[in-house]
């Protein structure tokens, strides 16, 4: 079955896909981004609603830095994108290349940290070999329990992606504009809709 992705993108911004269509669609989508797809996802038996147009543009823009930091992502999209990335990770047989691994890891960062209510937004930037993840916290008082939870996630990501060099920071943003803490070239990978 051949799927013309461009036709799909042009028709509408939203699609309802059943479990039979989904792997094929994403197979094509991942090929476009030079990432292979594993059939493990076929085991899923549920319907998904995906905004594929958004998905594709998001994917391209995030990692081509086309629009610099002017990307807004809703949480549900990230959860769905990340679930795909995780399924991919679980099914993979061989180590994927650095760029693909980085993308996958950043999806997991967005997914895992995005579940925390006190997080305002998440950015990343790169310095030499480091992936610097900046997690803006919407807090005005130190919260040790929150730090425990954040560092549990950080530890798990560092273990899962031990080949990548991460540096995590947790600026106290409250409602601050990102310019106060974030380099203008830093890329937003998750943002809470206020």
């Amino acid at each position, binding site marked *: 079955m051949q799927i013309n992705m461009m036709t799909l993108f042009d028709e509408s911004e939203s699609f309802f896909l059943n479990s039979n269509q989904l792997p094929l669609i994403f197979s094509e989508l991942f090929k476009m981004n030079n990432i292979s797809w594993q059939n493990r996802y076929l085991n899923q038996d549920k319907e998904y609603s995906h905004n594929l147009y958004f998905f594709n543009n998001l994917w391209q823009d995030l990692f081509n830095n086309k629009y610099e930091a002017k990307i807004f992502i809703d949480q549900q999209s990230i959860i769905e994108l990340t679930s795909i990335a995780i399924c991919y990770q679980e099914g993979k047989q061989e180590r994927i290349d650095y760029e693909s691994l980085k993308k996958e890891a950043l999806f997991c960062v967005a997914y895992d940290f995005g579940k925390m209510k006190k997080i305002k937004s998440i950015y990343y930037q790169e310095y030499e070999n480091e992936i610097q993840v900046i997690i803006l916290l919407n807090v005005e008082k*130190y919260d040790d329990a929150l730090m425990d939870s954040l560092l549990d996630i950080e530890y798990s990501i560092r273990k899962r992606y031990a080949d990548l060099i991460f540096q995590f920071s947790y600026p106290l943003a409250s409602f601050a504009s990102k310019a106060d803490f974030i380099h203008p070239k830093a890329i937003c990978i998750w943002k809470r809709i206020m």
Partner: protein
Amino acid sequence: MAKNLVHLSQANHNEQAAKSFLQDTPYHDWAITAAFYASIHFFEWFLTFKKYQHSETSIPTNSDGKFFYTVHAWREKLIKELINDQYAFKAFRKLRIASEHVRYLSLLQPSLSFQPLDKPAFEFYDLEDASALINNNLAIIKKALQVPISV
């Protein structure tokens, strides 16, 4: 003095400084920073017994001679992998994050105009926070590194 004892001595000195700052409010923010530097020296003491010897002199380089890690990134990798204790790793990270907050933080007021708060940034951590951060996390780190109690 042997290299490992110098680190242990400096670590203990920094820990005492941290406790001293806790008695001297409102300078408890510096207690957090002193405790972070105590934790670094405790780890460097521990590292002298390992093949890496010191975090700043063992950073791997690329084929062109450039450092593959920054010092902080390399040290945290060593902490994660050599100690292999999630609680100890979190204790290090908590002290580093808190010390960066109190040194660099510019907390902003939650308003549409993003006005700075009318209080200094270090008030984000009160004395109780600072005391708990220091005592709990240094204890976890020292236990994980097996720092001699008598020293």
